[in-house]
């Protein structure tokens, strides 16, 4: 009988006897073949692992629904004993704990009243608080973000030292969850985190904060506190909120911002004041806007025209009309629209650049045809 070692040696010497090009080809073929086998094995392993995890998740979901319902509604259920048994038998791995957290969140999302406190009790009893606290101490941003999300959804307080570092995280998602945690857990100052941020607020963050404020149970914050914030995005957000929450006492501040050096802030000041529609300040607002009109950029000019359309009179339109250039097509259209709005039957804007330009355009067009 020929030994395998002898065969191996023989094969190796046979390969060396081949021409170099064939030898390289053969070696590469073997390497790629082995690599392909390893890759297929890895894919199969991952697939099987995922299937096992999914089956475990489905089974655990049913067990959890049953356990939580018993805990919530069954008066004969031995809560202390069953909690210990469930924790020991069912929550062994990190996956089990994450499945339990997801299911508890579904309960928290659908039930309120006396059940909310019991759901918190289950969360703490199953040891999930410490599990998520350890996630918050890890480096993975997505684990920290998820942990913060769970804590504010379940209304569970955690040490501030674990939240504050995330306020200025480089990941938007984590920053956002930190803001929402701080907002929901605060009793007096839901936007206090704005004093600590080192990056501008993104539009999504502004939307999430605005939505979270709607369900905030404490007193509405005084948004003027951040109107001079170092980040224009924060100032702009607060100006929007002043209008949304009808904080009319801050109108003088908004009027001042009509002359701010940053055009974005000037624009938001116009939008907020326009939305608030306070009759006592309309004349002052329009006066400032008309004075500023010649020097504003096209976007702000558009906003001023819209404001005149909403709260102004024909005389205000006539005052700005001479400052609209022939080249500003959008402004010309807006001006014409407002002119029609103020004078539904006939245009009355006369002796302005705008009418002169418009007339010459019409003449050119008629010549062209």
């Amino acid at each position, binding site marked *: 009988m020929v030994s395998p070692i002898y065969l191996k040696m023989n094969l190796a010497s046979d390969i060396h006897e081949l021409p170099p090009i064939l030898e390289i080809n053969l070696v590469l073929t073997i390497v790629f073949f082995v690599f392909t086998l390893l890759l297929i094995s890895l894919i199969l392993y991952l697939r099987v692992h995922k299937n096992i995890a999914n089956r475990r998740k489905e089974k655990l979901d049913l067990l959890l*629904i049953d356990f939580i319902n018993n805990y919530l509604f*069954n008066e004969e259920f031995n809560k202390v004993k069953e909690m210990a048994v469930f924790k020991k038998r069912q929550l062994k791995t990190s996956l089990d704990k994450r499945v339990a957290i997801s299911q508890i969140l579904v309960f928290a999302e659908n039930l309120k*009243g006396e*059940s909310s406190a019991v759901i918190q009790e289950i969360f703490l009893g199953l040891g999930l608080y410490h599990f998520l606290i350890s996630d918050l101490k890890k480096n993975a941003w997505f684990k920290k973000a998820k942990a913060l999300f769970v804590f504010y959804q379940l209304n569970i307080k955690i040490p501030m030292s674990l939240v504050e570092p995330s306020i200025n995280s480089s990941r938007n998602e984590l920053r956002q969850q930190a803001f929402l945690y701080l907002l929901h857990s605060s009793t007096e100052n839901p936007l206090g985190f704005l004093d600590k941020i080192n990056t501008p607020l993104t539009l999504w963050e502004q939307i999430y904060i605005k939505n979270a404020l709607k369900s905030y149970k404490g007193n509405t914050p005084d948004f003027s506190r951040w109107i001079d914030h170092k980040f224009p995005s924060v100032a702009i957000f607060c100006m929007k909120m002043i209008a949304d929450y009808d904080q009319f006492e801050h109108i003088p501040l908004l009027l001042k911002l009509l002359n701010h050096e940053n055009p974005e802030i000037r624009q938001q000041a116009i939008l907020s004041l326009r939305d608030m529609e306070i009759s006592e300040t309309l004349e002052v607002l329009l006066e400032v806007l008309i004075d500023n009109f010649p020097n504003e950029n096209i976007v702000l000019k558009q906003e001023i025209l819209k404001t005149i359309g909403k709260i102004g009179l024909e005389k205000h339109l006539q005052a700005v009309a001479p400052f609209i250039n022939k080249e500003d097509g959008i402004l010309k259209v807006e001006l014409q629209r407002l002119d029609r709005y103020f004078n539904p039957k006939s245009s009355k804007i006369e002796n302005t650049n705008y009418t002169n330009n418009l007339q010459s355009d019409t003449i050119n067009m008629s010549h062209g045809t």
Partner: protein
Amino acid sequence: MKKKILVIEDNPMVVKSLEFKLLKEGYDVAIAMDGRSAMQQLEATNFDLILTDLMLPFISGSQLIEHIKKNHPNIPIIVLSTATQEDIITDAFNMGVDDFITKPFSPNELALRVKRSIGSFKNQLSHK
């Protein structure tokens, strides 16, 4: 004799909780996970109350309510929905639902409202 309640809801967690709570309160509970299955059960069994979501697979809650009001006008309906918009709630009442509970809901409050709806339905029948 136990009162029969048909729960029409597609969220397994909510279904289980409702089933658990209502069984504990002493009702018979039937479950339909979608509008189609609900219609089949309505043809086969007489129910004392229907508890339904508005967003359901295959047939929407609104279509289902219309069907129930047309074919089983005497069964009281309680809507259990995440919708909080005034127009959706008004539309539901205009269609003839007896009560509207928004999610998240308090199970104890729900049990009370179920009891009240079944009670008022029984009173209506006894007056007739």
